[in-house]
């Protein structure tokens, strides 16, 4: 019997072959790797090899003061860094019981939505890159820069802003910034229709994305697929609505839903949410209250957080990003666990979903699922 088994193993060796999809593969977003076992052109087995971006954040935050960590954590999720500061700040506020001024809440909302739009633009470009429609990547990355310029004006940095702090935001909005933001939003609105023509109404894109790795509702819930991807399966759940944070409870917005759950639905869902984010920013600009932007907080160097633990999750473009923070009452966090938005999709669900797909679908599947390696490597 064992001889037969070894023979079958040998046979397997000849029938199948391995492809290394990443880390330095052009289709791979970031430094991550799938080792794919292929037979013919069809994937038979997929084995993720993560950890290439591991920096040990969970350990590092334990070694720094509560306030110092603000400069560290944006680096957990690179395409959409602001979300990290927001989660961290909200968690600290919840543990300390601090009320954040309303203006700061609105500014946070705008920042988060801008980051979200930036991430969506990144995602559109990713779809373009994965399918060979490089024009889309060129356009979206250039348009993303308008947002980055605004960030730079507001915070002084292009990518890692460290703008949202426990108790509010770092500083108030400079003069003329909101007007410029409105202009940019209008511009992006106009560009969105261009993207429709280039990407979403492009028959070949539709052909490529249709029936690409359809996700069922049960799978989505069970495998922890979140954010736009779960809404693409038809589950109308949005953390911004269900467990509101920042100023989302004061701003009226619709949660779009798709039903098919396949690649096309996921892509279209992100396009719709892009629209929603633009609307939210517009409304936030209109409703922007006056007032201070920071609650009174203790001296950052001596700042202690009461004993307790909290789990805070926020909606991001690639799913629910969440921290579980434990404080033992000292000046440093006792433990912080990071739930990356695409941990389950990229490491677990991929092993199930990609089997039976073709080689050319891997990059596209990753683009539509928004697999973001830094947030599960931590």
């Amino acid at each position, binding site marked *: 019997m064992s001889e037969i088994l070894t023979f079958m193993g040998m046979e397997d060796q000849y029938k199948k072959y391995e492809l290394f999809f990443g880390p330095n593969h052009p289709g791979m977003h970031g430094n991550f790797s799938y080792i794919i076992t292929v037979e013919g052109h069809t994937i038979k087995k997929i084995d993720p090899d993560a950890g290439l971006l591991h920096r040990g954040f*969970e350990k590092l935050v334990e070694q720094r003061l509560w306030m110092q960590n603000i400069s560290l954590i944006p680096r957990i999720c690179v395409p959409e860094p602001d979300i990290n500061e927001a989660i961290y700040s909200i968690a600290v506020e919840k543990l300390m019981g601090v009320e954040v001024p309303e203006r700061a809440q609105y500014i946070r909302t705008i920042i988060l939505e801008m980051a979200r739009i930036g991430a969506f633009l990144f995602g559109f470009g990713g779809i373009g890159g994965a399918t060979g429609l490089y024009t889309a990547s060129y356009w979206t990355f250039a348009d993303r820069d308008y947002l980055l310029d605004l960030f730079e004006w507001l915070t002084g940095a292009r990518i890692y802003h460290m703008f949202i702090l426990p108790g509010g935001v770092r500083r108030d909005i400079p003069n003329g910034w909101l007007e410029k933001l409105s202009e940019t939003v209008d511009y992006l609105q106009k560009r969105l229709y261009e993207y429709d023509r280039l990407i979403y109404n492009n028959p070949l894109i539709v052909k490529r994305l249709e029936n690409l790795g359809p996700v069922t509702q049960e799978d989505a819930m069970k495998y922890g697929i979140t954010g736009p991807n779960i809404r693409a399966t038809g589950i109308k759940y949005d953390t911004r609505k269900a467990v509101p944070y920042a100023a989302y409870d004061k701003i009226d917005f619709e949660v779009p839903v798709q039903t098919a759950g396949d690649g096309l639905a996921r892509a279209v869902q992100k396009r719709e949410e892009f629209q929603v984010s633009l609307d939210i920013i517009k409304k936030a600009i209109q409703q922007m209250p006056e007032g201070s932007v920071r609650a009174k907080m203790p001296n950052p160097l001596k700042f202690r957080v009461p004993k307790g633990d909290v789990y805070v999750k926020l909606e991001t473009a690639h799913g629910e990003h969440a921290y*579980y923070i434990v404080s033992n009452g000292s000046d440093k966090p006792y433990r912080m666990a990071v739930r990356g938005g695409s941990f389950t999709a990229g490491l677990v669900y991929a092993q199930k979903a990609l089997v039976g797909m073709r080689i050319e679908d891997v990059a596209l599947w990753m683009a539509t699922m928004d697999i973001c390696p830094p947030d599960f490597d931590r």
Partner: protein
Amino acid sequence: MEQREIILKIKENFSKSEVKVFDEKQFSVFADKDDIVRILSFMQMIGFQQLAIISAVDWIDEKKFELVYNLFSYTHIQQVLVKTKIERDNPKIQSVMNLWEVAQMYERDVHEFFGIEFSGNDDMRPLILHNWKDKPPMRKDFDSLKYSNEIYGTFKKSEEV
């Protein structure tokens, strides 16, 4: 179901467990180590579909590891942290990968960083770290700075580049 009803149900079935409410959308349940699979399957049954994360906390003073299973329900919009504590010297607990497939990867992660054994989960190949020979890095008694200095060196200006 309201949060109150869920808590009542849990109390009914698991009288030993302690429940702590954080706010109207989040509460935690502290259960016994041996109960953990039962309580999690019970939670799954009453509508907590998503296992958001499994994490561990190293309470080194108590000589305990606290395991936190973070569940979420799309039907009740409730976040629940199911916690349990295990001995730090012999960290071993039943795997829940039969309930949620994602647990496999989370447990592998926790195993790698805390050295906790999960019986029933066989695939414990190192996922993140490369050629790790020291004690699991997330344990409180592991000194990251010292390790870094030891192996990667510190920056000296005198060295020629």
